[in-house]
């Protein structure tokens, strides 16, 4: 995947980013959730990545499945339809970009409400340690989001009341690095790459697979899709058990 990314950046052509999640390799550890928060600082009232767990019982048989969720980077994003033009932009590489300086307050709330997977949250600008005896400096660090520099310093932050969501780690992609959730996945469940590159792994693994996407069916054209790799020697349950 790193080679694919290098090739794409070297080619100079506009990529078409795609994220694929193999839910059967996901163990629900939330490594991605924490990596995401460290990479793109968010506060205690929301997370731009989460992993849900579903359990099922049938007699003595038990199942548990895990599914990570973040912004689907829809090609036809419902969030963009409920806010003024320009606040939410669909980039040529597929990333749905928020104008954080404008997408605030009621607009942010409207965008969050429109998301079918609840991948957007309203940032209240708070930090994890501001209610403790000492606000910690690491939470004040500067970071890049959509090309601009931000901080969560309680004194100066401009993120209060802003809509936050997954950026596909656009700042990392520009620097030649895969998204944080992809590199940290200990189950190897995350795939990422340029769908336009026919020799890429991401292209290859989506060929001939049973891709599951409820949201595809809703016409959202998501850039995050799920599939189930066969695990012949494990007891498992299909996605359709929940999403029939």
């Amino acid at each position, binding site marked *: *995947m*790193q*080679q694919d*990314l*290098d*090739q794409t*950046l*070297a080619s100079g052509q506009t990529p078409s980013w795609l994220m694929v999640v*193999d839910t*059967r*390799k996901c*163990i*629900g*550890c*939330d*490594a991605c*959730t*924490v*990596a995401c*928060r*460290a990479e793109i600082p968010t506060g*205690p009232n929301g*997370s731009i990545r989460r992993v849900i767990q579903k*359990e099922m*019982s049938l007699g003595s048989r*038990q*199942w*548990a499945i895990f599914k990570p969720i973040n912004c689907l980077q829809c090609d036809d994003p419902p969030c963009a339809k409920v806010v003024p033009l320009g606040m939410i932009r669909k980039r040529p590489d597929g990333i749905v970009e928020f104008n954080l300086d404008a997408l605030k307050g009621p607009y942010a709330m409207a965008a969050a409400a429109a998301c079918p997977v609840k991948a957007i949250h309203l940032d209240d600008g708070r930090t*994890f*340690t501001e*209610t*403790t*005896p000492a*606000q*910690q*400096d*690491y939470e004040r*660090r500067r970071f*890049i989001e959509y090309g601009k*520099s931000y901080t969560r310093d309680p004194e100066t932050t401009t993120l209060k009341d802003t809509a936050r969501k997954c950026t596909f780690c656009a*700042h*990392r992609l*520009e*620097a*030649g*690095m895969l998204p*944080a959730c992809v*590199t*940290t*996945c*200990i189950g190897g*469940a995350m795939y990422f790459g340029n769908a336009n590159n026919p020799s890429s*792994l991401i292209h*290859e693994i989506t060929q001939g697979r049973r891709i599951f996407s409820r949201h595809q069916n809703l016409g959202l054209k998501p850039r995050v899709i799920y599939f189930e*790799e*066969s*695990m012949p*020697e*494990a*007891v498992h349950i299909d996605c359709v058990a929940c999403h029939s």
Partner: protein
Amino acid sequence: MQEQTHVVANAEPDGLESSARREFLTGGALLGGAWLAAALQATERSAAGSPVLASDFIYTTCLQCNTGCEIKVRIQDGLAVKIEGNPYAPRTMDPHIDWRTPVTQAARLAGYLCPKGQAGIQTAYDPYRITRVLKRAGKRGENKWVTIPFDQAITEIVEGGVLFPQDGGKTVTGLRELYALRDPGLCRDMAADVALLQSNKLTVAQFKEKYKDHLDKLIDPEHPDFGPKNNQFVFLWGRLKAGRQDFFLRFVRDSFGSVNAHGHTTVCQGSIYFAGKSMSDQPSGGKWTGGAKAYWMADTTNAEFIIYWGANVLDGNYGPPLKTPKITRGLASGRLKIAVVDPRHSRIAAKAWKWVPVKPGEDAALAMAMIRWIIENERYDRRYLENCNRAAAASDGEPTWTNAAWLVEIRPDGSGGAFLRAGEIGLGGDADTFVCLRGGVPVAFKSDDAANPAEGDLFVDTTINSIRVKSAMQLLYEEASRYTLWEWAEIAGVRVADIVELAGEFTSHGKRAVVEIHRGVSQHTNGFYNVLATLGALNLLVGNFDWKGGLVYGGGAYGESGGAGRPFQLSSHPARLTPFGIDIIRGGASYEQSTIFAGYPAKRPWYPLASDVYQEVIPSAGDAYPYPIKALFLYMGSPVYALPAGHSLIPILTDTDKIPLFVCSDIVVGETSRYADYIFPDLSFLERWEFHRTHPSIVHRVSPVRQPAIASPNEVVRVFGEEMPISMEAVFLAIAERLGLPGFGPGGFGAGDLRRPEDYYLRMVANIAFGDSSTGSDVCPDASDEEVAIFLEARRHLPPSVFNAERWAAVVGPQWWRKVIYVLNRGGRWWPYEHAWTGEQVRAKYGKLVNLYHEKPATTRNSMTGEYMKGIATYVPVSDALGRPLEHKGAVLSLITNRNILATKSRTISNYWLTHIAPENVIYMNPRDAAQLGLRDGDWVTVLSASNPEGAWDLGHGARKPLRGRVRLTGRIRLGVISFDLGWGHWSYGAEDLVVDGTVIPADPRRATGIHANAAMYVDPYLRSPLSDVVGGSAVFYDSRVYLVRG
């Protein structure tokens, strides 16, 4: 690295599934145009918070749990802001990149890492960190403190006196007085004579006469085997790894001369380690010695079938990052099949072919049933088991052999005793010459003989020269056939079909099938024998030791402390003492040979097969058995929180007569350090040195280095003329300076100085750089000028009290400095990926006898019952220390615990990124059990038990923490069993208000959530301390039963 392939999910014979190759990137890939372009913009991006420069990272080693993953810490404006996996290391990248890849290329690469590892920033940057020395202002455990100067604290501890007027004017004995025996020669002589005393070759009277001028140096002249007063200084640790351990033991044992340095092994999995020690003991001079705390695990990369038995590998058990990718890839490719034996349907069970919810504590019943089926269906590896020695094994291409066919003498009561020696039946040889039977003819052999192969019949029950003998395999079969499969199934609470399916599958993959175990097997009163039955007997039956996909001992670590050819010998000491005497936990000691033998049961258990019995230290001090202690130092441990029934320690810790001086090293005021007299702030794992080494499931040789990545918040003090932040090292250095202890300060190494931590640890790094070849043939390269610049630039934020390049260079000298930088720039040293296997076996082999039968326990008496222990895997019912059934007083719900990947016992509640995901823990409960009690999902309950009818932690001074939590109903737990995630339910560590210098530091309610139900676990009715496996030493977590009361 190998060529990439375009096939996605086919298994390859070498186990490196091709999709892994696709995900993995080669070093060469980074030389593309995109990389150069990115590098050109790097400075600008770095300034804005996007890292791509090699100098933005310091590579070190995680300590959020004991896996010790290699990490790269991203530094921005002098602060750690993100932690990622280290791509050079097999724990965090699979396959990992070659060690010689330039750091400029590795900068953009991140390995994977679990959520705890990534949240480690919050362990370091914890608002509740203590940074100056705290001295208690009230009674022990009242949680009132004053800050005092470091030097004052050292003076008080060394000199003693009336240190706490509030204690009624009691005088505390200082370390100067305990440092009684100082002469290395006298110490050595006394040690030798105590050994003679213990073997009845010298009387106490003779000893007293010989040392009549030195009796004041002994704890009790009537009991010279207690050793010198030095032993009344006790050092106890929780998490401590190589390097720091060597440094600390240098102080405690070599310089101060105390035998009482004890680890925490038994709270984790002591009975695995001590069963492993027994499995790895070798015959020598008629005795069985030299065994290691061995813990074999699966070669997960190549195994075809693994039974994870009481091993929750996707949450803990030495490494979700290490094991998970090998498991998920193996499942996806069809290479791997998994069964899980656990009362709880754990995270790994969610990926398993089969879940067998065994009854807690009845693991051996299931194992013995499998053994019976395997033997009766002849599904064992006869060829392997018949080999009696090295030569026979070698002729079959087997690296290891076992004693299945060796003959054991049978006592009149039918129990197995010692092995038959050849000399006893006129076949000559010495005390290490054993006998097997081949075609009815006795054959004498030596175990390690590489020239004369001996193979024996497996099932022998006969009499030779009037000596009744059986083969070890025969004894195993007799144990396994005590019950029918149906009876075993009833005891274990499983179906016969489960037994047959498990045993059948386990014996259908040749040597690529493994039983891998962890705490669920060992932390029972019968833990030792559960381990012998599972890890031991079952794996030996398929002969999988050292085979690819089989059971492996691990690749080990590069020798950092010295040895042949290495540049620095860290054990050099100008005047080493020889600590002697029975230690406070009676580890490795014989009750019968002691001067306090008084029949059975002993006052407290003796542990001839174990050491580091964590739950025994404080209760032994409480009972002054075998002798009273004067000073207890506790390092990075929280026995009150971590031990089952840890509440039983509190009355002892608060008693200043039983523990007159209690000093803790901690980064916060924690659940145990809150009872201390003094707390010295320690460095967090991101601020200090250590050498985490390896674990048995890592087939590569690995030497990760833990090194300072960030500045410490601690007060900077001066010791031996050197400035350093307060740390455990600083405390020991300061005490050594005050007492004039040899081995520290100028000339501490004889030829070299030991004034500060780096004087020790940089020499270790140089030894790693040297490598393992005594000829120096695998010495590491010098760092280039560019790498030197990166090294310095990456440390620009570290203050001179932590990092001083000139001084560091001087410690190792110009010959080694650039090699040290090469290692530190990568955070360690590792074998190349492919190097781990050779042919069908692993390269790092155990390569010795693995015991199926254990002569040492078979000829040693249990100090509680007075009976000989069993020498073979067997089923033993759960019991108290005296072997009596436990009194449940009507309670029916078995209480167990489980790890959650989001928490590590006592020390991650400060990690808000984790508690945000799991704000509290819950009590997992089967809905059918809940229905009986009328409980619904989310209901609050209080947990009570026979030994804690109040259902609360009694913290002393009227403070209590109820055992109260919420139930979560799930079918993923066996009927009749409840469990909770360890790590929540805190009452300290920022969860309670502190008073420091008269000011209240308010608690954070986010840290007090959930339940920590350890206090409902049983206190042993005889010992009045946590329930224990008196053979293997484990603290017992899983054999208590509880009542739940709504509310």
